[in-house]
């Protein structure tokens, strides 16, 4: 296809499901009703940390209309998204670990009765000391929240060294240290999590689960494990997600519970979480304390960087081990870092579990790094845009931590936003109270390794050509609003020369569709897109060979376009696409193909090298403009200019939507969103409601000027890279840098709330350091570092002293 004129790819398209969505026809999980359906409710822990002494369900079971009650004893097998953190029970087994941890479940003929029954369940708890913050977890190894982990209440400890950073600092003209804190925030999808299960009794003995999940394949695996059923006896269908953002990527208690209740009662069972419960499911941004020390030459070239992060993980593992690695993985992919040391720790605390939220573990360090660089640029008297432009990671290169960079459009991104925003006329030149700030970022287009170690493809597609000219594409990928269903159609339409709306897509159904690992880590366009591309090219090959014979031309001359198959040299000579299918079907039977995609092997071979590699990295640059009220500390962001290197847009309109949506979510994190806790030693969620958890409305949302940079990457379908997460990353540091430009104070803590701005302004007025932010990083019992010589020091991707390749148990997302 290379060099061919693109007819579909790159244009602005309507999405395949657009009509269903604007007419209210799309069925979300809670829109499903089955005859004789029961309703389930979960009883959740009122304690942050407690031993369960007893659970008495007698009275609840006796209530009219109650059909079943479950407790931890009924679901004793643990599960969790990562093989190394199988630390959750569908219902708490011996202990509860956060306020909101599910303890018991009821199925009843109505939601009201189920709710009433919850009050009749008597649970006796023996409260334990609760751990409320990562610092507290470091200071108190006892009582342990889990009986596993690297040290006391520290779940995971990482120490990676790529070259000698001390040598780098010695070579530097300037060495700077900074501390930052990034508060936790949550996904807040508008759709509350919901799931419906049905059971076909033996001999079928099969469970069907419809759920608002981003990862039906992983839910399938978790159900098989916990319910002890063969996977073939479980069907998971992901309903279109009413927003996900990472919050629906774990297998959840409520999914397992309704499946179990359906089996027990022989009736369909539905659960819809309340908004309050969605806050307890969480899996959002890890609150992260960070320390960074960087050495630079006078011209801004980095000579060495040492980065430390401490993550507050909440009560369970979730994706946390991967999140922790991610806080140290992508520092090297924007500006060359010749020597790099990363130390990361994740603590267990008695709060709702943290996990992957849009940007997964990378927005926190990106914020820290980009503000840190802004300070360095100022000290060196270099314009921060220039500093970055002068030191860009070259395309087609390998970083110190063995990440393989392909296409790299960051320079073009920076130039666009600098020019568009009038940066040169504004930076350090606007009146007091107004400012501009710049920041850059990069994100993965899918993870190089699967979550559980296996050597099978990450995405699969089956394609069927109908003799009527329609095509059906089957893929396990999950539509969460990002448009992944439509991506399949555009790509197949491009290859087969038909209209995207001639294509039916069947997705996210473990009975019907080949495995795709799920809608996370910005992997879907690249991976399912490549699988679809392969399947479509194989179909094209079949159809072309029969058409060529019929037209009596060499197969290379066959063109597919406008629903026709014709001779490139004589376009009038050809046949309808449907006729081409009929020809092939008559000659060789049903026309169907498959395609699949496996990412390239990553270059790093050390323990921990599994997090960070990606087939392609997207790049983004942003300039934020702010107005800061010095009386109130209120920060208003009128406009953000953002340029994103997407490789190639498949559907330009959808790319624009992803950029704008990312800017929106980043703005919320920059200014207001926070998971705050109070009472009971700061373990009770302060405001589990949409009113009190502040998120931007139309009145706070800024104007966005978007530039799409297309620097096609050979790894992506038609050169496409990710766009769903990357554009969120530069927003927080751009806003923080702009606040400094406006009023001369550094808020080294996200969100940048009026209170923090005011405190920093007060310090400034008193002649103290004009800053609000953390002042210490605790001592952590770091393990012996894994030393990996960087490529330019003769390294081969392995750690010093490393024997064989990586142990399989350590390969992870």
């Amino acid at each position: 296809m290379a060099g061919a004129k693109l007819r579909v790819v790159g244009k602005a398209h309507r999405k395949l499901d657009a009509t269903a969505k604007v007419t209210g026809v799309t069925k979300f999980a809670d829109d499903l009703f089955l005859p004789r359906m029961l309703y389930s409710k979960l009883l959740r822990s009122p304690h942050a940390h407690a031993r369960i002494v007893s659970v008495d369900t007698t009275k609840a079971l006796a209530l009219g209309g109650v059909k079943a009650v479950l407790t931890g004893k009924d679901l004793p097998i643990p599960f969790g998204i990562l093989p190394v953190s199988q630390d959750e029970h569908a219902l708490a087994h011996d202990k509860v670990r956060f306020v909101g941890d599910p303890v018991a479940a009821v199925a009843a003929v109505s939601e009201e009765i189920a709710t009433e029954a919850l009050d009749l369940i008597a649970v006796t708890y023996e409260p334990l000391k609760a751990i409320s913050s990562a610092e507290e977890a470091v200071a108190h190894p006892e009582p342990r929240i889990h009986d596993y982990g690297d040290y006391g209440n520290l779940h995971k400890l990482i120490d990676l060294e790529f070259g000698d950073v001390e040598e780098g600092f010695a070579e530097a003209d300037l060495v700077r240290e900074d501390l930052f804190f990034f508060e936790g925030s949550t996904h807040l999808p508008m759709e509350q999590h919901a799931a419906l299960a049905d059971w076909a009794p033996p001999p079928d003995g099969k469970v069907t689960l419809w759920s608002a999940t981003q990862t039906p394949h992983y839910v399938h695996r978790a159900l098989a494990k916990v319910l002890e059923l063969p996977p073939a006896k479980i069907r998971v269908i992901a309903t279109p997600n009413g927003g996900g953002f990472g919050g629906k990527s774990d297998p959840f208690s409520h999914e397992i519970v309704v499946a179990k209740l359906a089996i027990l009662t022989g009736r369909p069972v539905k659960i819809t979480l309340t908004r309050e419960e969605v806050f307890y499911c969480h899996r959002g941004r890890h609150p992260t304390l960070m320390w960074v020390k960087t050495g630079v030459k006078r011209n801004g070239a980095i000579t060495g960087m040492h980065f430390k992060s401490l993550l507050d993980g909440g009560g369970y593992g979730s994706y946390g081990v991967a999140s922790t690695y991610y806080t140290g993985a992508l520092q090297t992919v924007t500006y060359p870092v010749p020597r790099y040391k990363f130390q990361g720790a994740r603590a267990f605390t008695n709060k709702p579990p943290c996990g992957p939220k849009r940007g997964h573990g990378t927005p926190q360090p990106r914020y820290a790094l980009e503000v840190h660089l802004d300070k360095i640029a100022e000290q060196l008297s270099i314009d921060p845009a220039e500093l970055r432009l002068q030191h860009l990671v070259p395309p087609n290169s390998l970083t110190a931590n063995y990440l393989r960079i392909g296409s790299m459009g960051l320079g073009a991104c920076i130039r666009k936003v600098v020019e568009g925003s009038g940066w040169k006329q504004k930076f350090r030149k606007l009146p007091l109270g107004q400012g501009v700030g710049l920041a850059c970022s990069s994100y993965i287009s899918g993870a190089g390794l699967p979550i559980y170690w296996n050597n099978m493809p990450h995405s699969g597609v089956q394609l069927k050509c109908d003799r009527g000219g329609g095509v059906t594409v089957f893929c396990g990928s999950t539509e969460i609003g990002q448009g992944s269903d439509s991506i399949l159609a555009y790509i197949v339409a491009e290859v087969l020369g038909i209209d995207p709306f001639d294509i039916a897509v069947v997705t996210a159904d473990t009975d019907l569709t080949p495995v795709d690992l799920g809608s996370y880590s910005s992997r879907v366009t690249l991976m399912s897109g490549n699988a679809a591309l392969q399947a479509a090219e194989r179909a094209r090959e079949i159809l072309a060979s029969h058409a060529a014979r019929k037209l009596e031309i060499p197969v290379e001359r066959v063109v597919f376009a406008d629903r026709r198959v014709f001779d490139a040299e004589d376009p009038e000579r050809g046949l309808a696409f449907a006729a081409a299918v009929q020809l092939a079907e008559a000659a060789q039977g049903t026309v169907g193909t498959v395609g699949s995609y496996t990412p390239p092997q990553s270059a790093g071979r050390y323990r921990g090298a599994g997090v960070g590699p990606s087939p392609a990295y997207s790049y983004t640059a942003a300039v934020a403009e702010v107005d800061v009220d010095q009386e109130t500390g209120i920060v208003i962001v009128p406009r953000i200019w953002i340029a994103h290197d997407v490789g190639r847009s498949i559907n330009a309109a959808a790319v624009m939507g992803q950029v704008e949506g990312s800017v929106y979510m980043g703005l919320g994190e920059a200014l207001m969103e926070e998971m705050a806790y109070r009472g009971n030693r700061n373990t009770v969620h302060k405001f589990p409601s949409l009113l009190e958890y502040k998120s931007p409305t139309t009145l706070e949302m800024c104007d966005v000027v978007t530039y799409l940079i297309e620097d096609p990457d050979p790894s992506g379908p038609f050169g496409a890279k990710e766009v769903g997460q990357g554009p969120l990353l530069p927003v927080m540091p751009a806003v923080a840098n702009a606040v400094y430009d406006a009023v001369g104070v550094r808020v080294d803590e996200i969100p940048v709330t009026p209170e923090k701005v005011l405190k920093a302004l007060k310090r400034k007025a008193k002649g103290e350091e004009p800053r609000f932010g953390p002042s210490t990083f605790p001592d952590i019992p770091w393990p012996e570092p894994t030393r990996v010589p960087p490529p330019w020091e003769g390294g081969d991707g392995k750690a010093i002293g490393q024997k064989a390749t990586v142990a399989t148990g350590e390969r992870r997302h």
Partner: protein
Amino acid sequence: MTDPKVTIAFELNGELTEVAFAPHKTLLEVLREDCGLTGTKHGCELGECGTCAVLLDDQPVLSCLALGLACSGRRVKTVEGMAAGGRLHPLQEAFAELGAAQCGYCTPAFLLTAEALLAGNRTPTRDEIKQALAGNLCRCTGYIKIYEAVELAAARMRGEAAAPADESVYGRR
């Protein structure tokens, strides 16, 4: 559950409708559970997100805060009632065209709230659109495509041959 059902008659999407339900039910529950119209969504059921908005006598109301009983004899319009004669409403058309519905969960409420705005103001400014939609949360779009879709639909409803701006679907060049 023990409450005996009540029956009301009201105009639902242009049709006289009778429906029986437990008297404590909200309009949201009556629409979704008793009328089978699941196009109306919910994000909180506490009046905080705007996701459940429907038109009651042409005015946007939060159906999670309105009692079903209070709708007796009144006119209710849900997203299912927007398309007419097998054609999308101009707002639906513009939302689909611009990608103003990403996950689509907030969309029905935005569409109806926008319809009420345009019924009273054929040429709303960007600020008027923002004000009118300030009670509806959307987590996906950043609202921008929604504003653009409302403006596009408004222009078309005024009879103008409007098309999406190049910059809004391809970015600034």
